[in-house]
Structure formats: structure tokens, C-alpha cells
């Protein structure tokens, strides 16, 4: 059996859902952030894979992937900054305890 697009897609799909799982079940903001990173990576796998199998003519996929990586970095930066300031103010980063704002 030849290695094909489907394999990569499967991996990325599973990775994405693992990330999603973290997103949905983790209390710790940082853990949720990690989940998000996983999801972004899944997207990256897709992009690169498609670039390889579907549209090898141009490198849009890989470039997109690079962009996504950068964005991920930025998100991590800003996000973690927010986490820190939130922790300073609220003394917690457990999101289910951060709910003054509701209804």
C-alpha cells in the first residue's frame, strides 16, 4: 500500500480532534492554548499535504503553513500575556472560575 494523501489527512483529523478535546475539557487556560496549538498544527499538516499532492505547482500551501506557524507564535505570545495579567488580577487561570461576566 502506497503512502497517500488520505494518511496525512487522517493523522491531521485525529490531531485536530485531540486539540479540540483539550479545548473542550481543560480547565487551565494554558492547557487550552496547547489544544489550540495542536489544532493549528493539524491545519498545517493539511496545508502541506495538499500542497504536495493537490497543487504542487505553487508553494501556497507551505507558505500558508509558515504563516500559520507565525500566527500560532503570535497567539501564544499575546495569549500567554493575557493569561499572566488575568492571573495577576484574578489569582486563577482556571477558566471555569473566571465567570463574573455571564447571562
Amino acid at each position: 500500500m502506497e503512502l497517500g494523501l488520505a494518511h496525512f489527512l487522517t493523522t491531521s483529523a485525529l490531531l485536530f480532534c485531540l486539540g479540540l478535546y483539550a479545548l473542550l475539557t481543560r480547565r487551565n487556560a494554558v492547557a487550552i492554548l496547547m489544544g489550540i496549538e495542536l489544532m493549528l498544527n493539524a491545519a498545517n499538516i493539511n496545508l502541506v499535504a495538499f500542497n504536495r499532492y493537490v497543487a504542487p505547482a505553487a508553494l501556497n500551501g507551505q507558505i500558508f503553513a509558515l504563516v500559520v506557524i507565525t500566527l500560532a507564535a503570535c497567539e501564544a505570545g499575546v495569549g500567554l500575556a493575557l493569561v499572566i495579567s488575568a492571573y495577576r488580577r484574578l489569582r486563577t487561570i482556571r477558566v471555569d472560575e473566571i465567570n463574573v461576566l455571564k447571562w
Partner: protein
Amino acid sequence: MPMPPGDLWSLAPEFWLAALGIGLLVLDLFVPEGRKRIVGWVAIAGLALGLLPIAGMLGGPARTVLLGAYAVDGFAVVFKLVIVAATILVILSALDSLSGRTGFEGELYALLTLSSLGLVMMAASADLIVLALSIEFVSLSSYVLAGYFKEDRKSAEAGIKYFLFGAGASAVMLYGFSIVYGLTGHTSLYAIALQVRDAPQPALVLALVMVLAGLGFKVSMVPFHQWTPDVYEGAPTSVAAYLSVASKAAGFAALVRVLVVAFAPSSVELVALVAGLAAVTMTVGNLIALPQTNIKRMLAYSSVAHAGFLLMGVAAFNAEFGTPGLVVYVIAYAFTNLGAFLVAVAVEGRLGTTELSGYAGLAQRSPALAAAMALFMLSLIGIPPTAGFFGKFYIFAGAIQAGLLWLAVAGVVNSVVALYYYANVIRLMYLVAPESPLPLAEPTALRLALGISALGTLAIGLFPQPFVALAGAAALLLRF
């Protein structure tokens, strides 16, 4: 390969905004504490200048630059105008309300300016990569803005919530983008549009939905709206205003461009999908808005509801009244909702409360403020001769023309529901006695901003012709 100079010229506004933003950062270093308002005024002046090149592009030919990555068409131009104008008003309101509440005032103006650049690009980007970039650009700055008052519990909470929600949504969206890319092998919307016709159905639907998650988050469309009330309530009021108008407008620009340009040719039943979402969105927004007791929160839900009305225009994109309707509504909504938030800013600044109870008897304490608020509320209800009415009128027209009579009826019912909580504000201001007769004074900058938005609200209602023309220009959205 060398770029034709025309391309560069058509990017003039973006360059200007970028330069302005960076310039402000630099300027901020030299402006001493307590004089930071200067930075704000400079930002306002700069943005105002920025309006000129944008306006200059009105009526120009619809085309793309940078190999289809970036669209320069009436649609984008109009939205750019709205965004920049809104930013100006927001900064005006911030000048008074923010000074003293944060140590990073200068950066705030810079960030607002820069993120307005992001919004501008969102409205114009015709390439998935650029789109993703500009969306993230906006999101990142918005997260920061929402959490700007670090000493304020609510603000901090708003920041982190907004971030987590937004990051999640955009992750989903990016995954969707990747699938779209896989299905068509292109990132340029126009190239995608050519391929998408015979793209395999299930995957396309999946991609569409995931993309909707990201864009829906930006325009606060149900079920991706839940950040809205919390963030609006927690964020600095000016920022909330900014999010509710500028970033929503840009979000709709992007949404329309993606759906209409890229997905419309496909065999997916876009209209039914969007119409359904529109109905749900406006209903949920209005219903939850009813029991609210906090003006910002109430406005947040109302902005969800209005997202529903706007989606009505998106659903009617096939009708000749559809897109113009959307644009007119956006413009009307921008003025009106900004105005409402500005009043909220003023009241908060004077009374220190954002609870509705604070508005009791405002008519006696500050007639001008109350009158303005009443005007905005009526406009949000859609009573002529205000902008809101004309927008609603146009959107309904689009829906009916597109054969979506049921959606129009749903819209009508919703307007009636909405009447309730808007009228409640009017009632509080005029029919209820104030608990203290002390008059309130509005600061100059705010007065200016209020005047502009009130004027706009009335002007659109009384002399809609120019705006209709504008919408007509916007209607020639570059599509295949």
C-alpha cells in the same frame, strides 16, 4: 516580477495606515505622561487624512492587485470608509473616557489605528492567506484591547475569554481554509471560485461550515456569538463600540466576499443555510436582550440581533437589493450603534455605571444626551426618519425580492420584540424620574463624536440618496 505602480497606488490607504500606526508608536515615546491625548488627536487627524485616498477610489474599476490576492472594488472601498470613520469616532470617545484609567494610553491609540488597518485589509483581502492574516491581525489587537484595563476584573476576564474563544474559532477556520485549499488547489478566492463548481460536496460543506465558524465569530453569529456579551460588558466601553461596529462591519465584508465570491458558484444551498442562521441569530439576540439590565450587555445582544438582520442581506445576495441592502444597513448601523455606545461612554464617565437604572430621568439631567440616545434607540428599532429604518427597509426589500418572505416576516416579528428593550431605555430616560436632579455635562470630544453620529443617523434617514448610491457602488463586488 515587477509590480505595476497602479497596484501600489491602490494600496495607498493601507500604507498610510501602517505608517500612521508605527508613527504613533514612535510618537508615543516622546509624548510625556498626561499629555497622551496628543497622540489620540494625531491618530484622529491621520485617520481622517486616510479617508481621502480611500474616498478617491470610489467609482474606480473593480479589480484585484497582487495577482488576485487583494481586491480593490467598490465593496471594499465602502467598507474601508465605514471602518476608518468608525475608528475615528471611537478614538474621539476614548480620548475622554480612557485617559487616567490606563498607563498605556498612547499604545491604545496606536493599536486602534493598526487594527483598523487589519480591518481594512479584511474587507479587501481576496486570498485565503491574506484573509487569515488580517483576521488574526484584528483578533490579536482586539484581544489586547478587550483586556486593556488590567486592573479591572471584568476587563481582564473579557480579555482572556475573548482570546480563548477567538483562538479556538480561528483554529477551526484555518482548518477549514486548509480543506478549501485542498479542494481547489488555490488560495485566491477568484481562482477558488473557478474550481469550486465541481468540488466534491461533503468536504466542501464541511469546509464551508468551519470557515463560517471563524467568520461567524467575528460577526457574532449564533452559535458563535457567545463571547459578545461578556466581552462587550468587560471591555472598555469605547473598545466595545469599536468591536460592535468596525470589526463587525469588516467581518461582514469578509463573510460576503468569501461566501459570494468563493462559495456561491458551488452547489451548496448557501441561501437556505444563511437564511436559517439569520433567523436564529436575530431571534436569539433579541430574546436574550429583553431581560438585560446592563446597557453594554443589552447593546451586545442587540448587536447579535442586528448581525441576524445583516445576515438577512447576505442571504439575499442574489437579489439586486441584497448586497446594497447589507451595505446600507451596515452604514446605518455603524452610525447608530456607535452613537448608542458613545452615550453609554458618556453616562459611564459621569455616573460611573453601565446599569440601565442609571439612565432613569436622563432627559431632565442631560436633555441633549437623552435626545441623542432616544434617536439612536428609535433608529435601532427602525422608526423613520432614522438610518435604522432605511437600513431595515432596504434589507427587507432585499429579502422579499429574493423570495425570502418568511425571513422578512421573521424580521418583522423580531423588530417588534426588539422594540421592547429599546423602548425601555427611552422609557427610563423620559418617563421615569431621576434619582438626582444634578445635570450632566458632556465633554467636548464626546459631544463632537455624538454630534457626528446623530447627524449621520438622521441624514441617512432623511436623505438616503447618496448612501444608496454608495451602496450601489459597493454592490459591484468583484465576482465571477
